[in-house]
């Protein structure tokens, strides 16, 4: 009994995000002209999965009480790189995929090294590295173009057994292979502990530096998986500054919707995934209700503003006014 209550309290944010997503998705599909069909689900999944990967990446860093404003740019850079490398024969394609993931890993590791060992503020450091990653992406693709192994792309963006979207299967696999082991490992615990209270974690001998470094590095890897999927959907690479920026922004919105605390130490990537899917569905609601697409940026901005303001409710629980100043 006590165990289940503890579990419920811990997963409250995730369950809330799941709830919001289900409500939004039901409204969406019941108003969609085609209704709840495999096609509609596949399209929605493909759009949502991109943001879900970037949001997972953001979650890992946010858990350590940091922030990664370069996730969108790593996402773009790996998209541009994949449009060069993930082509040709199966072996070449496989090597290309590995190379793209490795680049994402390195980008994340650079962020981690600068923030942890260079002791710089995550905001400024990742804005700066984001500019560098964007610049490299622009070098790779001054103009939109390139191609991708279309067999692989179609397989990963299609449907398994004609029903389940393949992108969701990949997302599940990534969660099982990366997130679950990480969050249960010593390093994952260290990342949570560092976000919760760095001083206390340090005093207790928790390997906070390694934990945070692993979080930043894996964030780069997850962003590059997102970049890879973007290439699979669009068949091209494009270094669009606005797109990278908006993915960074939306990843923060998704993380907040998913119940991950921006002060660190609380939340899970699974919540962020549902946050991302919910955020995407909210954007699509405008489409089914025939709103002018011009209103979409404003609508998404307002949702973001409301979502981040929800955190202010914690103020009502403050007993001592000095707790305002963390």
């Amino acid at each position, binding site marked *: 009994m006590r165990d289940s209550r503890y579990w419920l309290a811990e997963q409250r944010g995730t369950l809330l995000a799941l709830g919001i997503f289900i409500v939004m998705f039901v409204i969406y599909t019941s108003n969609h002209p085609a209704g709840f069909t495999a096609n509609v689900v596949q399209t929605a999944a493909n759009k949502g999965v991109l943001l879900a990967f970037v949001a997972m990446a953001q979650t890992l860093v946010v858990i350590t009480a940091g922030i990664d404003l370069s996730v969108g740019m790593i996402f773009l850079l790996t998209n541009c790189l994949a449009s060069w490398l993930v082509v040709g024969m199966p072996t070449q394609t496989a090597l290309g995929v590995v190379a793209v993931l490795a680049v994402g890993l390195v980008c994340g590791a650079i962020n981690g090294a600068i923030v942890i060992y260079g002791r710089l503020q995550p905001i400024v450091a990742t804005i700066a590295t984001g500019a*560098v990653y964007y*610049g490299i992406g622009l070098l790779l693709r001054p103009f939109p173009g390139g191609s991708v192994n279309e067999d692989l792309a179609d397989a990963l963006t299609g449907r398994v057994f004609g029903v389940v979207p393949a992108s969701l299967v990949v997302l599940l696999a990534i969660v099982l292979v990366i997130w679950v082991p990480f969050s249960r490992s010593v390093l994952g615990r260290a990342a949570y502990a560092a976000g919760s209270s760095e001083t206390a974690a340090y005093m207790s001998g928790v390997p906070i530096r390694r934990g945070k470094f692993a979080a930043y590095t894996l964030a780069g890897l997850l962003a590059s998986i997102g970049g890879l999927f973007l290439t699979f959907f669009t068949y091209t690479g494009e270094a669009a500054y606005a797109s990278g920026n908006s993915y960074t922004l939306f990843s923060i919105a998704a993380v907040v919707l998913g119940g991950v605390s921006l002060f660190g130490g609380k939340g899970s990537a699974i919540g962020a995934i549902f946050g991302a899917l919910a955020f995407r569905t909210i954007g699509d609601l405008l489409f089914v209700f025939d709103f002018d697409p011009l209103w979409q940026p404003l609508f998404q901005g307002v949702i973001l503003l409301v979502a981040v303001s929800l955190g202010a409710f914690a103020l009502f629980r403050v007993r001592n006014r000095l707790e*305002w100043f963390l």
Partner: protein
Amino acid sequence: MSDMTLAGRMPKFIRRADPAVLTAFACIVVLLLVGSLYSRSFLSPEYLLQQLKVASFLGVIATGMMLVILLGQIDLSVPWSVAAGAMMACAAAAYGPSGVALAIPFGIFCGVLIGIVNGIGVAYLRIPSMIITLATNAVAQGLMVVYTGGFSPQDSATGAMRYLATGFAIPGVPNAVIIWALIGAAMVFVLTRTGFGRAVYGIGNRERAAYLSGIDTRRVVMIAFAASGGLSAFGGVLLAGYASKAAQSMGDAYLLPSIAAVVLGGTSILGGRGSYLGTVAGVILITLLQSILSVMQMPEAGRQIIYGVVIVAMLLLYGRAPASR
């Protein structure tokens, strides 16, 4: 010991200066020398004055950014505060003579509004500044997209805006430079001679302590964000006057440079430490760097990479947080 004797021999003003500010000025000299290797005209007064004029737009925006960074916060809503200021000023100009007269105040007012939303979020709702300013940036972008229909607006800047940005009230000195000098002087006065300035430094060092010593910290933070929004919008107004109209993404090019200018000038990103002289040095440094890169015909990609690398390198030199112990 040798360090101390060496410092003892140096003139007083060098000993007292912040090493970061000195480094920034040294970098400016190096950039000027490198630039003069590329082009003879690099050291000519006309060219330098032209650079100063271009720098003054960034200078106005960086002034607001500095105020916020001194508090230990950050303002990521600069891009669309700049664009909103420019667009709204141009939009007001379309409403007859009174609109023309009110164009500049109206543009600044819109920026102040964005800043006030930021301030309420940070000071009263205790939302991390980078998050709430990202959100207001998105909302401002949404509002501007709805207003303009997704295109750059057709309204053009008023004569007064053009005069402020490109005119010469004093022969030989561009008006934009004078405006930057006035704003800079006001900023120095506020930071060093007023209670508000003391409060800003106090909050940047430790907000709890400032609160306990009787400062209404929330009001100070709120005013600082409003000022930052207003100054960003004023920078946008000047830019619109310079280009004689507003454009969709005109502010994007000012977020990273304004943060970089403040931080390169030795202002601690953690707040509480920094001088306006450093910000002036940072602004000139960034502008010269941009200018040299464009003289070298460096493509946009290379510029972004060099920016990022320079900022990280300079921060690693003197912007590091203390080791956790």
